[in-house]
């Protein structure tokens, strides 16, 4: 397994499975291309003909209306035909294996699979088994990766902060279970920020996370000190009480972003959240709706970034 699973033999991006291992130039190219798609969204006709005649299959083994919708809008703005499959409800319950499902859909002349799955590595497995002309985009797999979310976050950071070097970025919350955090960490280190910090209680930190190139804090105030970007992660309901955390209230007391805690960050710091937010659990409403919040623009940029990824993948080989 020497070859990078997302690049072809000439180093071109052929699948987007993870940010880890992507050359910096490819990440920057995606962000640059996305900027042009932002301007497309400002026109009367928000559509370009790039993917005319191509079929994009949204293959969601795990329900997610929001992410699926942004991919659907992105594909449609590229003039692709979009087929949404809620696979969890059909094939899998009939005992069809993941690869059988993919083989059947490939026979329907799919050009691209957008895959969300509860198991880490499911998109990698699919990418290994599809024909070379089919592209796979990871729309979130288990705890592993959510590369398009991280790319749109990078787009947002660049939009507001212009440059990556020199930035101190703090990621706060459930790092252990978060594919978003993992992809953000890889994207930030690839783009060369000065420092990535993760802030969480020990029960929500994965083993050896510092090996990913981050500084680990369990105290939020210390971790936020001087941060230029504060990224809050969503805390899943089922994790709020039990063996990992005593209660949502206690979590909010220690790790919820309030204006008092935010005051320890750089005065120009921006606040981000991949959504959907739990107000009063990981973030106070006054911060979420405050001047430093860039949570809504994140959503707009998400479509442009996904259009960029799709158009870079689906083009012919030079």
């Amino acid at each position, binding site marked *: 397994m020497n070859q990078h699973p997302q690049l072809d033999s000439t180093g071109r991006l052929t699948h987007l499975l993870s940010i880890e291992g992507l050359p910096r130039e490819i990440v920057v190219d995606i962000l640059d291309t996305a900027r042009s798609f932002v301007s497309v969204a400002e026109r009367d006709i928000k559509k370009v003909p790039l993917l005319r005649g191509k079929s994009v299959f949204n293959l969601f083994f795990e329900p997610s209306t929001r992410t699926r919708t942004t991919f659907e809008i992105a594909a449609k703005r590229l003039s692709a035909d979009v087929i949404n499959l809620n696979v969890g409800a059909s094939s899998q319950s009939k005992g069809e294996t993941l690869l059988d499902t993919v083989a059947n859909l490939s026979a329907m002349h799919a050009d691209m699979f957008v895959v969300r799955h509860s*198991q880490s590595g499911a998109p990698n497995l699919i990418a290994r088994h599809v024909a070379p002309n089919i592209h796979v985009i990871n729309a979130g797999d288990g705890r592993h990766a959510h590369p398009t979310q991280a790319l749109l976050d990078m787009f947002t950071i660049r939009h507001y902060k212009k440059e990556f070097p020199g930035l101190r970025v703090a990621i706060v919350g459930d790092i252990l279970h978060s594919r978003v955090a993992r992809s953000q960490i890889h994207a930030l280190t690839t783009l060369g920020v000065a420092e990535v910090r993760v802030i969480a209680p020990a029960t929500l930190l994965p*083993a*050896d996370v510092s090996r990913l190139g981050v500084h680990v804090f369990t105290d939020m105030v210390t971790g936020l000190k001087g941060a230029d970007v504060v990224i809050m992660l969503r805390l899943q309901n089922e994790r709020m009480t039990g063996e990992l955390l005593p209660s949502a209230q206690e979590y909010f007391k220690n790790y919820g972003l309030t204006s008092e805690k935010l005051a320890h960050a750089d005065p120009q710091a921006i606040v981000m959240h991949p959504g959907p937010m739990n107000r009063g659990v990981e973030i106070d409403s006054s911060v979420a709706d405050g001047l430093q919040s860039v949570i809504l623009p994140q959503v707009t940029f998400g479509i442009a970034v996904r259009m960029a990824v799709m158009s870079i993948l689906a083009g012919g080989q030079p």
Partner: protein
Amino acid sequence: MNIHIAGGRVIDPASGLDAQQDVYVSGADVAAIGKPPSGFRAERTIEASGLIVCPGLVDIAVRLREPGLEHRATLESEAAAAVAGGVTSLACPPDTDPPLDEPGLVEMLKYRARSLNLVHVYPIGALTQGLLGRKLTEMSQLADAGCVAFSQGDAPLPDPQMLLRSLQYASTVNYPVWLRPQEPSLASGGVAHDGEVATRLGLAAIPTVAETAAVSTILLLARETSARVHLCRLSSTEGVEMVRQAKADGLRVSCDISINHLHLTDVDIGDFESNCNLIPPLRSRRDLQALRAGLADGTIDAICSDHTPVDDDDKQLPFGEAAAGAIGLELLLPLTIKWAEEAGVPLVKALARLTSAPADLLGVAGGRLEPGASADLCIFDPTHTWRVDRERLRSQGHNTPFAGHQLKGKVLHTMVGGHIVYE
């Protein structure tokens, strides 16, 4: 038949013999080593110069998948793989479907193995009924049917109380208990070692403490009950160190590791390679080095293949959903040779971990090459290099993390009870 094995390098780890000698087989037994017995007339001569002649290998962890899991393997397919790998005796864990918890099931397996007449099969009986950890099995009757030890396979015992009772009872009837040390509550849902790789790949983790907490409990209760305990598939630095200490303290404890853990680490999972989804999980390089050191100094008694055939449908799944395990019968010898070369361990010492030591753990004959012993032999070319090709392995399972690897050491003849069962 009288067979003359001429000019080979004969290695018998039990006696320490390592010399170029001729071996004379007469009927089912080894008749003589060195000079022919008087009046010996060979009906067949095997030219073995440049080859190594050693006792047939004894593999203490081979899943035959019978009864109940014949879509993954059968006795026929796996016995063929065994002898192709030079294995002449094997022990199978009780995790079949149904588990080996009734004498009838054990007798049937023994009967099937005898009629196939390829390889000695030693079943390990279930420690608890259905491996459910609630009721003890009829160990004496299972032993009469052919079980040589009792085990839970990879199924957990629910609590220390059940473990204590199992050890007390097994020591009463004087059979060893084989346990894979893992505290289930600490391993719950995990599929990979709790380290950087699992963190990067987002795989649910099994910390080392899941192993050490269990080893600690088992050793305390073994001391308490004087039961004979064998720890299966150690995986961690700390686990090996605890066994080393227990042995130094005079406790009757033994342990083994799988051939996979002798060569692979969690880094080999790479891009979610599900053939590296193993029980216990592949751990760090530091752990690998500790396992190798433990094997070299004798803390670890035996190497096994932990042969676990899995069909493609259950393996070609996302890592966390794939069935765990790898096949290894045909790789056991070359991978042991590879370790011996890399670690600078003499072959005679390395082969002990595959022959006399595991035979002693099972308490069965075999694993020895001496006059009067059953002629269970393996003749291999130690220099022959071959490439592991999934499709050409004889096991019904093709699941191996070593596909594509170049390995040295090729079995040319396997003999069981004086019969050539593979060449």
